[in-house]
């Protein structure tokens, strides 16, 4: 896609060079993870321009607070996706964002949301066909709410009208399915 070759490093190399603030580290990080992180961000922040702002903020934050990451706490992506999700949620809850939304006409909102939904769901339609078959719809909806939309499992239980225990079970079962699928 890009003119240059995308840079890719092992997670170990990546963490090491990020600690040393090497220029190549942030480039590799961007090439390896920007699309995955943007997938999460753009499901929470529908407006593409704002979602891109959030992605930029995410990388800046990763770069500056990298000292707080330790491999003991889990995988690098787990840490990064939490940063991205929190920044995205902060953004849609912020005053600026709410004011911006108030300025749009109601009819336009319906249209623009439809448009944006299409772009958001495009990659999903392209890439995950076989995955959809392994993941049951009720598992997928919960995982997507919590992982992509930033709901807590308590909020997801409310949203879907399902008991908390069931939510936890389905989350776990769904992720088990994913593990099987990717192995």
């Amino acid at each position, binding site marked *: *896609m*890009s003119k240059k070759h995308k840079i890719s490093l092992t997670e170990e190399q990546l963490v090491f060079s990020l*600690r040393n*603030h090497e*220029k190549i580290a*942030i480039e590799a990080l*961007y*090439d390896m993870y*920007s*699309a*995955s*992180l*943007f*997938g*999460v961000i*753009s*499901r929470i922040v529908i407006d*593409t321009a704002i*979602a*891109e702002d959030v*992605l*930029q903020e995410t*990388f*800046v934050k990763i*770069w*500056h607070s*990298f*000292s707080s990451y330790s491999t*003991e*706490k*889990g*995988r690098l*992506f*787990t840490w990064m*996706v939490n940063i991205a*999700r*929190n920044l995205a949620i902060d953004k849609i809850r912020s005053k600026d964002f709410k004011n911006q939304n108030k300025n749009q006409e109601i009819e336009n909102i319906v249209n623009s949301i439809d448009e944006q939904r299409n*772009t*958001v769901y*495009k*990659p*999903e339609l392209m*890439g*995950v066909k076989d*995955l959809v078959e392994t993941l049951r719809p009720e598992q997928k909806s919960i*995982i997507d709410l*919590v*992982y*992509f939309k930033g709901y*807590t*499992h308590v909020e997801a239980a409310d949203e879907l009208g399902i008991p908390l225990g069931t939510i*936890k*079970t389905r*989350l*776990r079962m769904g*992720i088990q399915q*994913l*593990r099987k*699928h*990717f192995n």
Partner: protein
Amino acid sequence: MEDIRAYIETGILELYVLGDVTPDEKLQVEEMAKKHPAVKAELDEIGRSLELYARENAVEPSEALRDRVMGSILTNLADDNNFPEKPQHVNHKVVELTARKESNFYKYAFAASLALLVASTIALVNTYSRLKNSNDQLVAMQLQNQHFSNRVNLMDRELTIFRDPSFKLLKLQGTAKTPASVVTLAFSPAKQKVIIDMGNVKLPENDKDHQYQLWALVGGKPVDLGVFDAKTDSTDMKEMKSIALADAFAVTLEPKGGSVNPTMDQMVVLGKF
């Protein structure tokens, strides 16, 4: 091992990877992962599968964004590299300091105003007590001043009387009843004035129901010249009722306010020309 398995099956590790745990739960999971390799392995597996799931759902941001992100980070990096120390640390410290500086300013400002308040309160109390001292001294001086001016006035009057040749001084001596008593008075027939020198009155102090009354004897008849009190500390020159002629003067102790006729057996002093 059973416990670990049960712990894994609670689903807390999934919630941890999804970022949906309380800070306490977060610490607990990290603690468990440190102690038990099985927990750490499980965490990594869950993380990996969700990472791959995110990759399946990836959305490419616009190509221009890459340069924008790199620009914003690498501009800062260039700045960071100007510091001799590790840029990462310096950068963190700078961010924290700006945040702290602001709160420090208010802290110091608050402390400074508090110190100022205490200092001015002390100064105020000091000044107030000094002012009070000065006021007290001033009042004392005024009293003293008044006292002196009274004395000067009195002496002035005494002098005028004693210098005036028309005044005759008469010492009324104690009667048999009160031999120690003495009353000195000045009498000017020309000016028709009778003045008692209270400083030289030697009479027993009267109680509050009685007063001394001065009489003039004119042709053997007593004439009332007014009442007075005998106090040991009085210094005044007391002017009595006027009379032009008198053969003798006498003082009797009468009920308060005086009597029309002298009570003869209460006569304390008597003096004749």
